[in-house]
């Protein structure tokens, strides 16, 4: 693959990457002017649809198609909610986009609001991203001052208000209906769908919820055209009529046991091995990798042998993972115990289950407790089977919960029991604690 020229990250790290003047000097807000002055909202939707852009937040739903689910000719208000609750462990690409190039993202927000005819956009930002909050607030104020936000934008009668809304530290707010409930001032319990947000979302009005990276892509699709977008990435599998393809650039995070953790941009379809070797500086301390998390911990676990799997919307599924997720790869080396990795993952989900659906509230707790006893050397012979059974029976896929949190909680457990069975069995058999991580207090 020839060296790829970054698009989304092209301004990151340059002086003045956050300022509106710098952004305009680099050609910023031209896409917005083009759209508002020469295109109808429907044409913007068609452009994004024909580019084949799929949501970058985890589920990979085609963005343009989502926009067409809005009721036709709705008198309004229609809301745009931007999902900036990036809480998937090991994921931080949205933070980089917001902190380093806020106007690229903000232009995408305004373009999207124009396309879906939204009057108000709420950017739901996790509280932990304080720097993003301050940078974005400045960017929004500057955009109002320049007339890119507010009333009668470009003299075309297009009005838009953008507000930042800070969360309060709950993973479940990243689920789109949980986010809406939280925005409305309630506990972030996901809603039963249908109705989907496009029909009845925030404040019971039609609502589009999109991820930050997705909206940053919209800016470039409008600016450079759908053909440019489709020249990057992986076309649909001709043998699979339902495959929408994996087009476009994607941000990937590399963390864990690598020499150079960070955020990089590459076309969809890059392999995990390439990501680690070419961009992550290889596994640290001269060791070998034991495995990795392919796209945030909800997506499952892969072994070192599976590192040649391409990171596109189909690749992870071929090695029994849930999907591409957020494109955040976390590597663990050969000296790491899979028990520690799994313990950490189950503890996370047990802590973050919102408690609305019993299978998830109880199931995540059970899995954590079982991992805890295995880790302490008190595992039982039947534990792996119980883990597997719980993992396979919680979630939307088996049909027992309202949202996908439980699917994500079960997936890494299911994968680990299948792919690292020998190690887990061996650990249980030896019957004593040999992992290295320190455990802190009771929490």
């Amino acid at each position: 693959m020839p060296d790829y020229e970054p698009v989304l990250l092209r301004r990151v790290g340059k002086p003045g990457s956050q300022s509106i003047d710098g952004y305009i000097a680099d050609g910023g807000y031209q896409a917005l002017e083009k759209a508002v002055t020469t295109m109808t909202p429907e044409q913007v939707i068609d452009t994004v649809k024909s580019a084949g852009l799929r949501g970058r937040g985890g589920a990979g739903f085609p963005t343009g198609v989502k926009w067409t689910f809005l009721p036709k000719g709705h008198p309004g208000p229609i809301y745009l909610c931007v999902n900036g609750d990036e809480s998937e462990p090991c994921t931080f690409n949205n933070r980089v986009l917001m902190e380093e190039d806020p106007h690229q993202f903000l232009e995408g927000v305004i373009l999207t609001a124009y396309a879906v005819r939204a009057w108000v956009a709420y950017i739901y930002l996790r509280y932990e991203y304080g720097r993003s909050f301050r940078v974005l607030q400045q960017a929004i104020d500057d955009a109002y001052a320049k007339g890119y936000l507010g009333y009668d934008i470009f003299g075309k009668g297009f009005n838009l208000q953008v507000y930042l809304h800070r969360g309060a530290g709950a993973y479940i707010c990243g689920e789109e209906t949980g986010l809406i409930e939280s925005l409305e001032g309630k506990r972030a319990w996901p809603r039963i769908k249908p109705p989907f947000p496009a029909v009845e979302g925030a404040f019971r009005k039609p609502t589009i919820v999109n991820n930050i990276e997705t909206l940053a892509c919209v800016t470039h699709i409008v600016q450079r055209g759908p053909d440019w977008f489709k020249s990057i990435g992986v076309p649909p599998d001709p043998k699979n009529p339902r495959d929408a393809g994996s087009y476009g650039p994607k941000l990937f995070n590399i963390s864990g046991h690598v020499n150079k953790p960070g955020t990089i941009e590459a076309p969809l379809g890059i392999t995990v091995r390439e990501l680690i070797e070419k961009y992550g500086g290889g596994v640290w301390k001269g060791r070998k990798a034991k495995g990795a998390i392919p796209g945030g911990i909800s997506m499952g676990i892969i072994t070192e042998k599976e590192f040649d799997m391409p990171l596109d919307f189909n690749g992870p599924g071929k090695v029994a993972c849930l999907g591409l997720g957020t494109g955040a790869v976390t590597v663990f080396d050969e000296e790491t115990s899979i028990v520690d990795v799994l313990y950490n993952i189950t503890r996370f989900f047990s802590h973050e289950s919102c408690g609305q659906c019993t299978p998830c509230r109880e199931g995540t707790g059970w899995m954590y407790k079982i991992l805890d006893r295995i880790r302490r050397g008190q595992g039982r012979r039947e534990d792996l089977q119980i883990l597997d059974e719980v993992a396979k029976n919680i979630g939307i896929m088996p049909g027992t919960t309202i949202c996908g949190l439980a699917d994500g909680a079960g997936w890494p457990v299911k994968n680990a029991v299948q792919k690292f069975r020998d190690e887990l069995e061996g650990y249980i058999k030896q019957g004593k604690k040999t992992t290295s991580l320190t455990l802190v207090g009771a929490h």
Partner: protein
Amino acid sequence: MSYLSEDLRQKILAYLPRYPSKQAVTLPALHLVQDELRCVPRQAIVEIADLLDLSPAEVHDTMTFYGFFREEEKPLGRTRLWVCRSLACALRGGEELLSDVCQKLNVKPGGTSADGKITVEFAECIGGCEGAPCVLINDEHRMNVTPDKVEGLLADLRQ
């Protein structure tokens, strides 16, 4: 005479035009109160509810869902230090860092140092994985807090 200062009440009311429902101001109001008072006292809940045409139970319901807000029995110290314990940090010493910080301040996660200056919390992934192990100082990241940097970090926060 209300419990919340006039200034705070005005700041809360200033959020109302942003949303079509008053209830949506619940989280902003709770943040404003906790930022200033370091907790959300019971009387503040009553007055937020009054400002937003809600019952205090509705505000309390939302508030307690998010582990973020403190009741008046457990106010925050001057600085809230979140130590990440999720996978990317744990793989690079996050758990040890949390343990070390707790030991040096003689607190458990959630507790406040005796001088009232630092409240330590464990955090689930705070999105600073490229600088693992990382912490949040209130809402600002500090990256790569390796064991040799813990003393310096705590000294900064004690000042």
